[in-house]
């Protein structure tokens, strides 16, 4: 939500210490695009106008953690009781003057998927949809990357169409293959590496989502948008990077 002054509308938030080396900004406890916009804008703003001792941020659905080298902050602001106090003031100032994320700050990306997931037939049956329609719905829109977490490179994306939204498996699989595409509630995601997991699996991407051999190993970042493209088995085998 952008107003006339090209700033983001204020939203209620609270600030707390995650511990003595990280501060947490928490917005309302809901999954919402406007809140996530604010989180990502704040993350970009902290990266650009960072303070001495700043290390990194962790954007999530409705919160942003700011990690810092406490000893450096304390040294630079010796008159303050705590380093936390400085980081809190700094963060509040950033929130007041926050600008929307620049267009080139995020990217839109197409991800090919071979829709052969183990749970595809079961979901289609449960939702009383032909499998082709389920695939059509999953590929009919682009998804926002709300956050990265759980595993290196695991992107929480949403929101998926209600007609194909299914809960997590009651008993998670002990082994999900890298590249598996799944649905959990209104979220969709890709397993970057082999892992236990409870998301219902609809397909497999041939694209490496996290590659330790690359300088920038992680394909997706919070704020990016993803469009899934349905591909054939032959195309999958040709493109497979795993």
């Amino acid at each position, binding site marked *: 939500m952008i107003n006339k002054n090209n700033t983001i509308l204020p939203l209620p938030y609270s600030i707390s210490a995650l511990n*003595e080396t990280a501060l947490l900004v928490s917005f309302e406890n809901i999954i919402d695009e406007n809140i996530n916009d604010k989180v990502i804008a704040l993350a970009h703003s902290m990266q650009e106008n960072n303070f001495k001792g700043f290390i990194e941020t962790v954007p999530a659905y409705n919160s942003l953690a700011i990690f810092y080298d406490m000893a450096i902050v304390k040294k630079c602001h010796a008159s303050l009781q705590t380093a936390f106090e400085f980081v809190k003031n700094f963060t509040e100032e950033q929130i007041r003057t926050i600008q929307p994320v620049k267009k080139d700050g995020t990217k839109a990306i197409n991800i090919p998927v071979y829709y052969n997931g183990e749970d595809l037939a079961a979901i289609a049956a449960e939702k009383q949809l032909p499998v082709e329609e389920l695939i059509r719905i999953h590929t009919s829109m682009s998804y926002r990357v709300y*956050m990265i977490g759980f*595993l290196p490179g695991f992107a929480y994306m949403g929101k998926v169409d209600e007609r194909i939204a299914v809960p997590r498996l009651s008993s998670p699989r002990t082994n999900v293959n890298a590249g598996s595409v799944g649905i959990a509630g209104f979220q969709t995601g890709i397993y970057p*590496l082999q892992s236990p997991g409870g998301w219902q699996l609809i397909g497999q991407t041939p694209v490496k989502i996290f590659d330790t051999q690359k300088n920038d190993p992680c394909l997706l970042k*919070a704020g990016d948008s993803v469009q899934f493209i349905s591909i054939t088995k032959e195309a999958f085998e040709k493109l497979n990077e795993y």
Partner: protein
Amino acid sequence: MSIKIIKAGVLATLQDVGRHGYRSIGVGSSGAMDIFAMQTANYLSGNDEQPAVIEINFPAPEILFQQDAVISLTGADLAATVNEKAIPVWTTVFVKKGSVLKFKRCISGAKTYLAVHSGWQAQQWMNSYSTHLKLAAGGHHGRALQKDDVINFAADQIAFAENKILAWHISQNELNKIYTFENSIRCIKATEYDWLDEKSKQHFEQKDFTISNQSDRMGYRLTGNDLLSKRTISLISSAVDAGVVQLLPDGNCIALMADHQTTGGYPRIAAVIKADLPKLAQLSAGKKISFTIVGIKEAEDALISMQEQLAEIRSACRLHLEKYLLH
């Protein structure tokens, strides 16, 4: 210029001060569980804090020295021997080529750190030598050390006549600053502390927790206190860190450790202060702990004190090792 693992231990891995700056892509810091012992091991070997050390659990590996080496062991006392002669933790040891380092039993603590002068040669990934087991990256091929693995030193060692233990060591007085009151762990209230009901808040501080055997480098599961959340709504996934104590749906807690995930969906009721993480890292399954809540100022001051203490240890080690290690 190397050692050879002649018998594998349980999850002996190369670790350093951690991998910082990649949490936003889901890569946590990893690194040594006990950062105080890890850094001190390096200082006692005449290094700065940067090189990788070997983090050792019991049962520990048996190690053959294929070259003379200046080493140190810190942290847990696992009754180490070189050629069957006991060597202490928290000092510098000169080990001749052909000697065998063994660990006989666990006397105290949980993690021992083995450092070598000039550092172990390890693979760097994302600016850190720490082993990332899930990604199979960093350290030694991203995995625990196995039988027949050969780990090189970064540089040749000075020549010396025979195996020797230096008399100078880190004093008990120094160690007491970090490891005393073993069962009492200080923490601050974390973001969802107030989700606990009043009785659970009292129990959190007054009743002991037991470290369960479902504990590893990712986290220590803490049982024995059935804590209750007065909130019925669930938390939306959000950032966590080493030391963060999460409340699980079954009323137990988990204290996240070095290999924790970057985000989590359980309420964060407390955060172990960084200065007490070494102490917690040295407690193993079955041990009881109690939490004491402190303010953010005390948490900050305690971490500054630990960092200052490490800087003093570094200077003292330089002074004492100068005559041996100046080439």
